[in-house]
């Protein structure tokens, strides 16, 4: 079917973003409606494509008719398809939420939606592309749109957060470019599958340098430890839906790029140890920092970093069970964090500092939003009826299988920390007396719909995890089996 083609994930948002200024001249409300149609269509084709994808097969899209390794190609396999599905669905939900996005006027909502659409297109591009330099281009697209979105509000310290983000981002993307250059000089190609074949002849020391450069390049978007200084600032200063999509899309695209490089291109033993150490450091530092936060958005940001650390640990196990757990975690983290950010946005809408202590007694004042937040908190710490439970369980079993008992103990300990700071908020929401004067902002119906859909998804997956475990397991296979990827992209090349 011509309609369902992965190329639309990128071509369509770009086309709409280019046309949006003109559309605005025709009829103003279309500025807000068109992105919705586009996101809905993208979500539809991603469901269509994903459900029709055979297990272990990949759809290779050649751009401009040059077969890989000559031209750029997109690889839509079980893993990238699954992540694309998450991103497109979240994009639509975030659009529903921000459809009436404050009263910022049409000119600004035009800019907002252009930046948002390009963030989505860039994230999907990072996930789908099979070419290393194209990956860099898409990373830059996501990065620049994130800078713009972080600085979107004038009243907050968004510009400061954005500059910090830009500084780290520009440094690391330059190093990424350097890594790509070294790869090209050593292998003479830019196609990821062909690089994977040719990298066997490259000296280990050179490989290690390239790998470190890539770690730095992707670490920033994956919120890895020394590079995540921008995370709490950007998450707390950006508009609510933007913070939600950073957690749901940007971080997912970053970690996807990192593990795709690690698993598919390189064949070094030391990598997984490095990733494991980084993951543990990220998790411990972020979660302990989250405990100390007074601002709810900063707390959620640190918690998000902690979760990314856990995902890194699971990926670093280098077993199928570990990858399975990591992808499950990515799914849950994307959904639940989005839900938490969206509901926190309304809970603290009228307070200036977004302090946790401002939330006393909101369980009675804003029952619906508080309920959504509570559900999210229960789900993210991994309590049984929700989907977070299954992913945490699979991480723990995967770690136990590898007999890393120290890490197992660390994860359990950190989970306790997580429970402490999330339940502190729930305690304030439901068991404290409200402040005398509280201004509240009722969520509009579309925001309520968006949050309810997420909540229902989380509960349904929590009760029937079998709905998605098969897909996740296929995705894990697709990532773990490197030779299958190479065979799909380059069918005429024989390995060895």
């Amino acid at each position, binding site marked *: 079917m011509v309609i369902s083609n992965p190329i639309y994930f990128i071509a369509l948002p770009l086309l709409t973003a*280019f046309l949006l*200024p003109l559309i605005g001249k025709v009829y103003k409300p279309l500025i807000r409606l068109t992105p919705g149609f586009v996101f809905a269509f993208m979500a539809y084709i991603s469901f269509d494509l994903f459900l029709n994808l055979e297990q272990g097969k990949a759809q290779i899209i050649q*751009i*401009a008719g040059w077969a890989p390794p*000559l031209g750029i190609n997109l690889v839509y396999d079980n893993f990238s398809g699954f992540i694309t599905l998450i991103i497109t669905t979240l994009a639509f939900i975030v659009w529903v939420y921000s459809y009436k996005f404050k009263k910022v006027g049409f000119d600004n909502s035009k800019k907002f939606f252009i930046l948002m659409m390009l963030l989505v297109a860039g994230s999907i591009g990072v996930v789908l592309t099979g070419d290393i330099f194209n990956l860099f*281009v898409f990373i830059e697209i996501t990065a620049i749109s994130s800078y713009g979105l972080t600085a979107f*509000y004038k009243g907050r310290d968004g510009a400061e957060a954005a500059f910090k983000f830009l500084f780290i981002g520009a440094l690391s993307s330059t190093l990424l470019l*350097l890594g790509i250059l070294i790869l090209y*000089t050593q292998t003479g190609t830019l*196609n990821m599958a062909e690089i994977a074949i040719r990298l066997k002849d490259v000296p280990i020391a050179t490989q290690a340098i390239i790998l470190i450069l890539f770690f730095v390049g992707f670490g920033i978007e994956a919120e890895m430890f020394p590079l995540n200084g921008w995370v709490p600032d950007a998450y707390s200063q950006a508009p609510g839906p933007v913070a939600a999509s950073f957690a749901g899309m940007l971080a997912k695209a970053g970690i996807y790029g990192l593990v795709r490089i690690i698993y598919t291109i390189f064949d070094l033993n030391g990598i997984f140890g490095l990733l494991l150490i980084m993951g543990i450091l990220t998790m411990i530092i972020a979660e302990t920092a989250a405990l100390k936060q007074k601002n709810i958005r900063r707390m959620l940001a640190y918690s998000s970093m902690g979760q990314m650390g856990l995902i890194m640990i699971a990926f670093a196990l280098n077993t199928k069970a570990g990858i399975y757990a990591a992808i499950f975690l990515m799914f849950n983290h994307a959904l639940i964090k989005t839900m938490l950010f969206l509901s926190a946005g309304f809970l603290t809408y009228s307070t200036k500092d977004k302090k946790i202590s401002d939330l006393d007694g909101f369980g009675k004042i804003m029952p619906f939003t508080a309920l959504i937040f509570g559900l999210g908190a229960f789900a993210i710490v991994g309590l049984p009826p929700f989907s977070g439970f299954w992913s945490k369980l699979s991480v723990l079993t995967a770690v136990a299988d590898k007999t890393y008992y120290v890490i197992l103990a660390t994860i359990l300990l950190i989970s306790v920390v997580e429970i402490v700071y999330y339940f502190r908020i729930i305690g304030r929401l439901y068991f404290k007396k409200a402040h005398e004067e509280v201004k509240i902002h009722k969520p509009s119906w579309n925001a309520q719909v968006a949050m309810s859909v997420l909540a229902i998804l989380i509960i349904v997956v929590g009760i029937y995890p079998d709905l998605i475990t098969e897909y996740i397991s296929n995705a894990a296979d697709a990532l773990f089996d490197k030779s299958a990827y190479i065979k799909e992209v380059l069918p005429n090349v024989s390995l060895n």
Partner: protein
Amino acid sequence: MKKLIVITLLLILGFYLMSTFISVPFGAERIAGVKDYYLKQSPETLKVSNVVTAIVVSFRGFDTLGEVTVLFLASTALGSILYRRRTHHSGLNPQREAVVSSTLVRTGAKVLFPMIILLGAYVFVHGHLTPGGGFQGGAIIATGFLLILISYRKFFINHNVLTWVEALAGTTFVLIGIGGFIFANQNNFLENFLPEGTLNNLISGGVVGIIYIAVGFKVGAEITGILDTLLTIKEAGLNPDEN
């Protein structure tokens, strides 16, 4: 102290980079790779004599789409960061209070402007034959507008025109891509669906020339927009209540 640590770290980085790059000596023959194929196919199949153009527009055309997007994104982000309030009465450019530049500069600008635009247009129309192309041509055109913007303080760029040029050029690019999807032999995005022509003719290379012209218009309009946004910065009043 901090400086010392930074310098030490940088020297270590430099040492490792140098030791990596020594393995590919300057000017020596390189490992065989995609470049040999590009050098062969570009004049033979694609009929584009400038191989760099062939790579930028056809072999790696998707990168170029991304690159144009980056510029578009930069100009949008700039607009959202600096909050230009629209002046509805177009004559009211805030720059009119600035010092008027001398007659010499203004006359010079008037004489040079058409030439610069012509050069820019030449560069991007001949992108597939000679060095240069959409980016270079677009950037040259933007410098022409820059000259006018700084010598005639009252010169006001009509944003409607910029928006139209930008949107139409970008749309042309994507639509040519989708055209390849529908009309070309293998139904691929951005694939050539026009006759290739003969090498070194102005009309050759199929869609390559057309795409590069669209890129030229888009880059020119975007950079001009960026410059105009920055030049009219004084207009941007920051209202602390705006949240």
